């Protein structure tokens, strides 16, 4: 069944080393490979400089090296409507959104996938560090072999229907090997620095960026008991568990953000890493997606509440309203509304949901915002 050359794979290419090697590996395996660059954000500055243009130039260089066709598609409107609007709305609500999860759900594995299918693609491939296991018509999402790079957290909203049309050729490789492959083949992007942070913000300062879209409303910073600790720059700039940038001096620190009062525009801070206000033992989550539906009303799993966290033991209960009640084996620190909770059994990523409410001893921690 070696008809790779009749299997068309459209690779989402960002101009980075990971997607470059993705295209290279597929080309070496004999697939009919097409590279497509997605332009989702316009950051053209006053001098006409645009990082997307630079990145697309790199895509062109690599595709020419691999001798595969390349195109660019523009999803700026979809990105704005589906990802950026959500991102701003969440901040307005005092939550901490995860635009990468939304981008995968709405853009890379929806708008882009649809586009690729319209080009007669059998699969789309990306440079995500995740694996897919296809057995007897069933498809499962597995963590990437490189546990440090594993990106299943961001892929938690993809269903098996979508994943059937997906390939993650890098999932079985450690990042260092990917670099090596790029260097061995002399790919134009072999030495390119990995991008960091949220794609549309890039290297810019997060606060400055956000303030261009949402008016900053400075207010008071107090302890949970109301002791004034100074001024905050605007609630949206802070996330639960944040330690940096509070500007609180004196003894008794370090200080942490433990909550927000949106109505009164107050940021709650408390001292000490093990401050009880930071800990919780359960959560309620919506926007539930399981890669493959799960019949059991209640099941055991491990979970991540943020990217790159270690797994924690949890018990998940599927409620009749479609939401999930997740109780933790041990107390957790700084579980934050707006972030994704992602479930695993062993190496299998079961799916995930968005954290809405956080509980401790049966009480909702409404100070989390």
């Amino acid at each position: 069944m070696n008809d790779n050359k009749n299997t068309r794979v459209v690779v989402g290419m960002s101009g980075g080393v990971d997607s470059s090697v993705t295209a290279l590996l597929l080309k070496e395996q004999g697939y009919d490979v097409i590279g497509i660059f997605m332009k989702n954000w316009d950051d053209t500055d006053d001098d006409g400089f645009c990082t997307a243009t630079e990145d697309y130039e790199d895509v062109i260089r690599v595709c020419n090296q691999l001798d595969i066709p390349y195109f660019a598609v523009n999803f700026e409107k979809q990105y704005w409507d589906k990802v950026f609007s959500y991102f701003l709305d969440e901040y307005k609500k005092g939550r901490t959104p995860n635009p990468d999860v939304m981008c995968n759900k709405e853009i890379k594995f929806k708008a882009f996938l649809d586009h690729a299918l319209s080009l007669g693609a059998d699969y789309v491939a990306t440079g995500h560090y995740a694996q897919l296991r296809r057995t007897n018509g069933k498809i499962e999402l597995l963590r990437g072999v490189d546990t440090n790079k594993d990106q299943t957290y961001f892929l938690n909203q993809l269903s098996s229907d979508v994943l059937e049309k997906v390939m993650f050729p890098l999932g079985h490789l450690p990042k260092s090997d990917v670099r090596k492959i790029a260097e061995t083949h002399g790919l134009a992007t072999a030495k390119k620095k990995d991008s960091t942070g949220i794609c549309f913000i890039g290297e810019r300062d997060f606060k400055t960026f956000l303030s261009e879209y949402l008016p900053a409303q400075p207010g008071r910073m107090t302890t949970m008991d109301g002791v004034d600790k100074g001024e905050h720059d605007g609630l949206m700039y802070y996330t639960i568990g944040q330690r940096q940038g509070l500007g609180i001096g004196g003894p008794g620190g370090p200080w942490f953000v433990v909550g927000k009062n949106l109505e009164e525009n107050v940021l709650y801070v408390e001292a000490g890493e093990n401050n009880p206000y930071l800990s919780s033992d359960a959560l309620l989550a919506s926007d539930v997606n399981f890669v493959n539906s799960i019949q059991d009303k209640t099941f055991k799993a491990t979970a991540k509440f943020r990217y790159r966290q270690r797994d924690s033991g949890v018990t998940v209960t599927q409620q009749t309203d479609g939401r999930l009640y997740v109780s933790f084996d041990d107390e957790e620190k700084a579980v934050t509304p707006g972030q994704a909770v992602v479930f695993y059994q062993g190496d299998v990523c079961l799916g995930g949901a968005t954290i809405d409410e956080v509980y401790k001893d049966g009480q909702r921690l409404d100070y989390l915002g």
Partner: protein
Amino acid sequence: METIYFDHAATTPLHPEVINKMTDVMKQNYGNPSSIHQYGRHARKVVDEARRVIAQSIKADERDIIFTSGGTEADNLAVVGTALKYRDKGKHIITTNIEHHAVLDSCHYLETIGFDVTYLPVNTKGVVELDDVKQALRDDTILVSIMMVNNEVGSIQPIEDIGALIKDHQAYFHTDAVQAYGIMPMDVNKLGVDLLTLTAHKINGPKGIGALYKKHDVKLQARHFGGEQERKRRPGTENIVGIVGFKSAVELIHGTELHRNAHYQRIKKLFFNELNTLSNVCVNSELDETSPLILNVSFLGTHIEQVLMNLDLEGILVSSGSACTAGAMESSHVLTAIYGEQSERTKSAIRFSFGINHSDENIKEAARRVKQVIERLRKLNN
């Protein structure tokens, strides 16, 4: 699968005869036309001959032809060069909002240094109204720049009428004629233009060589510095190989304009009639009163990017208006000017442009593949 090229408005294949002439000069004539020895004279002779042939093809004086690196540079030199030279006589410029970016961006630049530019709209056929030009003229207008044939939809502008209209006005008149050259006989005197842009690579000549016709009494501020070439208006060692290729291409088409026009009208109609068996195909601008080399159609219910890529994968090479910007497609400014940015037409417009390798057979084959792609995409998009 035969690849069929439909992007002649972007560029054309070199005519074999042009290649021969260019290789000959590459082998035999490498002198610098500015050198005072015999090799210099040999090279200079070639440049002079080419200049004469090109001048004659538009009924101009050979002294009024300035070689440039192509259409963009000629447009830049015409617009910016004139504006800067005559800024003391006024700072107002008139153009249209369907010009090539070589003109539009020159105007945008001039606006940043204090010039005032009027961008005229066009009617539903993509043609500027004479009355609008008349209304826009002011005492301080120094330049009117309006293209002869639009590169995206093929609409033909009333250049001769505009020329007559501003004959007694101080404003100079520039027209970008790169898409018109070769399909209509051209006489700069009859047209009433002071400046006219030409390029070789749209008429099966080489890339990297173009010309600006500049009536002798028009003065230009140079955009390049450093030599006496082109009488200082465009210094830099002459691109002799390109110039020879340009000349050869002109020789091949000059005198055959009307014949070519009729031939491509037939090809264009044939292709359109084949396509028109699909439902919801709209011709943008007009089928008949436009350039026979350009057919811009919207396949309602599809998206440009999707169609372009699919046609490419099926071996049909087309484009959508101007080349893409920043690695991604932006709405065509020409279709936006005619139909609005949000129009279904603007979002689904594809430009087919015709050229020397088209035959009835491959035109029909191309139409068959296009129809297949469009039908598949429409089904998918529903």
